[in-house]
């Protein structure tokens, strides 16, 4: 190879590098946030499984308003997330499906003031078509039906036990699922005749399931609190996320998913 030909790839590389450097200087600055503060950084949000779609949507809204902000959600049963936080997990925000789990975190000194941002209530969920003809809580005492509830260790299960106790029903479930979405999936596929999940889960189940409302006063409502954890290294971003949850916009997203006001 002649020396000129040998140099050509080098020349190409240098010119590409210069061109890249050239475009890197002077990008358009992103517009500052409405309040003039530009936030940046990554936060980890531990949220109850029922908040999956809501948190994903609000994370996108926050990232759009503040480019440079990334929200990394981690979903699970609130009790499981609580245990992870108590064991030192690096979360910035904790949004739980009931007050007990957030209170436990506050009592352990890991956070201070919880903020209620939504409510949810239980509904009976049946596969589309309701082949088994389920119509109320009393059907959960029927041995002939294949029924499921959430395990008593998770908020959805605790709420179910309260609802059964209130209605005086001696429930005979065939399975106690570790989380509401797993229960929903089994009802949606027709493996279970009915289950007790949150209203928001029923909506998330779409056309595969139908919901049967419980009578009012059935002791089946829960309030969702959110709290910023003291260990957060991006406190301002975390607080912005919680503020978004309680804002009108957050309220609208929550309402679309089936949540009620706090």
């Amino acid at each position, binding site marked *: 190879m002649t020396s000129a030909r040998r140099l050509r790839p080098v020349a190409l590389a240098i010119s590409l590098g210069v061109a890249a450097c050239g475009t890197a200087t002077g990008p358009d600055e992103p517009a500052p946030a409405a309040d003039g503060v530009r936030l940046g950084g990554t936060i980890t949000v531990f949220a109850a499984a029922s908040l999956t779609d809501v948190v994903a949507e609000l994370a996108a809204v926050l990232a759009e308003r503040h480019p440079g902000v990334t929200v990394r959600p981690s979903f699970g049963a609130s*009790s*499981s997330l609580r245990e992870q936080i108590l064991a030192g997990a690096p979360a910035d925000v904790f949004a739980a499906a009931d007050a007990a789990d957030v209170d436990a975190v506050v009592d352990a000194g890991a956070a201070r003031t919880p903020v209620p941002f939504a409510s949810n209530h239980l509904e009976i969920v049946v596969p589309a078509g309701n082949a088994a003809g389920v119509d109320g809580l009393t059907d959960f005492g029927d041995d002939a039906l*294949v029924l*499921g509830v959430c395990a008593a260790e998770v908020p959805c299960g605790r709420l179910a036990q309260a609802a059964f106790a209130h209605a005086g029903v001696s429930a005979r479930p065939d399975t106690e*699922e570790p989380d509401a979405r797993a229960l929903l999936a089994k009802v949606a596929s027709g*493996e279970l005749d009915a289950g007790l999940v949150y209203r928001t889960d029923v909506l998330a189940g779409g056309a595969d399931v139908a919901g049967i409302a419980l009578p009012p006063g059935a002791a089946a409502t829960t309030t969702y609190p959110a709290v910023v954890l003291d260990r957060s290294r991006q406190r301002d971003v975390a607080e912005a996320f919680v503020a978004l949850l309680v804002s009108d916009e957050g309220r609208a997203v929550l309402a679309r998913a089936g949540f009620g006001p706090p």
Partner: protein
Amino acid sequence: MTGPAPVRPPAVLVPLALVAVTFVVLPFVALLQRTPWSDLADLLRRPIVTDALELSLVSALAATALSLVFGVPLAWVLARSQLPGRSALRALVLLPMVLPPVVGGASLLLAFGRRGLVGAPLHEATGLLLPFSLWGVIVANTFVALPFLVLTVEAGLRAADRRFEDAAATLGAGPWTTFRRVTLPLVAPSLLAGAVVCWARALGEFGATVTFAGNLQGRTQTMPLAVFLALESDRDAAVALSLVLIAVSLAVLVPLRDRWLGT
């Protein structure tokens, strides 16, 4: 006859082996340190512990038995037969080892659930329902544990000296007699090792069980399921359950001697 003469280990292997041992043993040590020894006796008497232990032992044993009955013939086919497509068959059989157990459980539902490919007609015809029953637990355990047995026994069969089987045939033994009285004893160490690994895998199974059989104390809640749920509500019970599971496993695995497993 004594074993082979002891070999001095290459120097670099010893510290690496020490790291491996520490890595495996350390969580167990941490568990022992966290155990509520004074409450242990009470915790172990609780129905949630005794129910889960009984279910775990019964289902693991049943899964091992099923794996032996159906897995050994499969291992023989993979090792000895001239069937075309054996490699593809082996890959399929080993699939449950690679799949995340929850995926395995979901697939089992699609096959044997009430609306499943086989489960639906089965339910229509006989009213039999595998999910949410002990048999569902056994099916889930067998599904994940069978490949371990097949793999081990196939390796044993491949390594076995076929001249003994040829000699038996020459002496007039039929295929079944040869299999029963020559082949099986010849691969006994692999059978035992395979059965043990299969049993251990079945005992620790969680994902496929909870997805296919569900979770109900006294009916389908095995030890791993009980531990998982107890972790969120009662740490002490979770630690006690874990301790029992480890103790039971050690009780079976420790007495296994090198020579039984075939060195």
